[in-house]
């Protein structure tokens, strides 16, 4: 599989990440060598093998639907200065 500059731009957009021109060209060649390395997986016969999503064979636990966490809004909002009346501030979205 080979990739080009427009693929990198598309991936940057999907991952909400800007790269400058120099980064883009370095990434392009590095990504190509990473893709060549992972291409090796195609030679493995995986027929009807079950994909492994989790190392331990376990099922998701369920708990009773009770309140276990309490509102600590102020404490958590200490990690940004961009708060007003308990809300987070972002650039204007609606005109």
């Amino acid at each position, binding site marked *: 599989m080979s990739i080009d500059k427009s693929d990198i731009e598309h991936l940057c957009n999907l*991952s909400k990440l800007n790269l400058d021109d120099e980064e883009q060209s370095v*990434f392009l060649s590095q990504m190509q060598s*990473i893709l060549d390395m992972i291409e090796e997986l195609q030679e493995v016969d995986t027929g009807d093998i079950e994909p492994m999503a989790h190392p331990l064979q*376990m099922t998701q636990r369920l708990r009773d639907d009770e309140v276990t966490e309490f509102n600590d809004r102020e*404490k958590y909002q200490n990690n940004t200065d961009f708060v007003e009346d308990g809300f987070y501030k972002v650039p204007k*979205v609606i005109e």
Partner: protein
Amino acid sequence: MMKRHTVKELQSMIADHSASSQEIYKIYNKRIRAMNDSINAFISIESNEYSSDDKQPDSEISGVPYAVKDIFCSEGDQTTCGSKMLSDFVSPYDATVVKNLREKGTVILGKTNMDEFAMGSSNETSFFGNVNNPWDLERTPGGSSGGSAAAVAAGMAPIALGTDTGGSIRQPAALTGITGLKPTYGRCSRFGMIAFASSLDQAGILSISAEDSAIFLEHMAGYDEKDSTSSSETVPKYTDFLNDDLTGKVVGLPKEFFDGSLDSRFQELVTDSICEYEKMGVKFKDISLPNIKYSVPTYYVVAPAECSSNLARYDGVRFGHRSTDGEDLDAFYKRTRKEGFGQEVKRRIITGTYVLSAGYYDAYYLKAQKVRQLINQDFLDAFKQVDFIMGPTTQQSAFKLGEKVDDPVSMYMNDIYTISSNLSGVPAISHPIGFVDKLPFGLQIIAPHFKEHELLNIAHKYQMVTDWHLQTPEICKEMD
């Protein structure tokens, strides 16, 4: 007191009142301040953990100080994950493993340097600068838990927490001449441990001896209702299993780990350690793990995929770096992430986005998960015939800083022996087995799921008859 001390030694000093825990804490704090300029093992140093009227809990590790990789949240402390993105982040709560240890009366010396978001094998991707290996300051201590490894090797901390996603505890332990344990996936809670690849990440320990790891693991491990992937398997008292007889235990030597590619001087050290184990009654058997050669490509699909998803949370809104530019929300996100993340992290986010994107999911991600199953099956089959698997931890000793930094694939190959145990979830330990050109080298031992007690015992038995783990770098002697 300036020599390196094990946790075991500190325990007896506290017990027989030859040093108080406050005195011990102060000595380590002083030592960190004196050495950190040359080693850069710590991103932040604690100093006010103690007031003399603190009532200490009654536990066997009460008063023992330790270092924490800066990937674990610790309440009220700066927690950076080695990234500009989190350089001002203050944890609002404790990670469960930190909370568990705090409740037993241990005290945090500081937060250790690491590759950014634990992505790297040389500590060079840290926003806070690379860590220097105490054995040779021009070399890497390995990564990503390089700060924790260097701190223990240099005697700046008796023991340290690390995380291991593809070798990030074992590889730096090997490169700095200490012991590094990656427990079974799910053995320790991941709550409050900043996520990189959630199906691979596991908290563990870097220590001088396997015995010290056994002492700490018991207090760290266990089921946590805040981590649904943590295991409810009973946590044994690991120290009870130390000194169990090894006679009749069978160790598998996978031909894939002994394919002749290892430098003969390293091979000699591995052979010597195998002889040592033979003297203890251990039997060796050649085995094969046929799919293990696909570990690195499998990992570099699974880990970036999970990383790209986990790191989506860094958007500059609620915490972390925030760009002052960006005319609209989309541009704001993109600039924040461009400014906040380093090169390696960006590369993995983009790789992960690629393997998960429409049209490539089946070919890469699903395929990798199937190969992961085959690799896991290789381990399960092998452990029907053997109790342990052994091989070198790394292909070489500590390399020069800057040597591989521009070549990601060659950097990724550093973890060729360690990655497979993360894919399968089995526990593994690295312990030092000697030196080549004054640089330490490590042996890796892998055990079946939840057999940490056997793993710690076998490494401990080796450390009872050898003293490689007690060798100290020159830089420590200069301190005395």
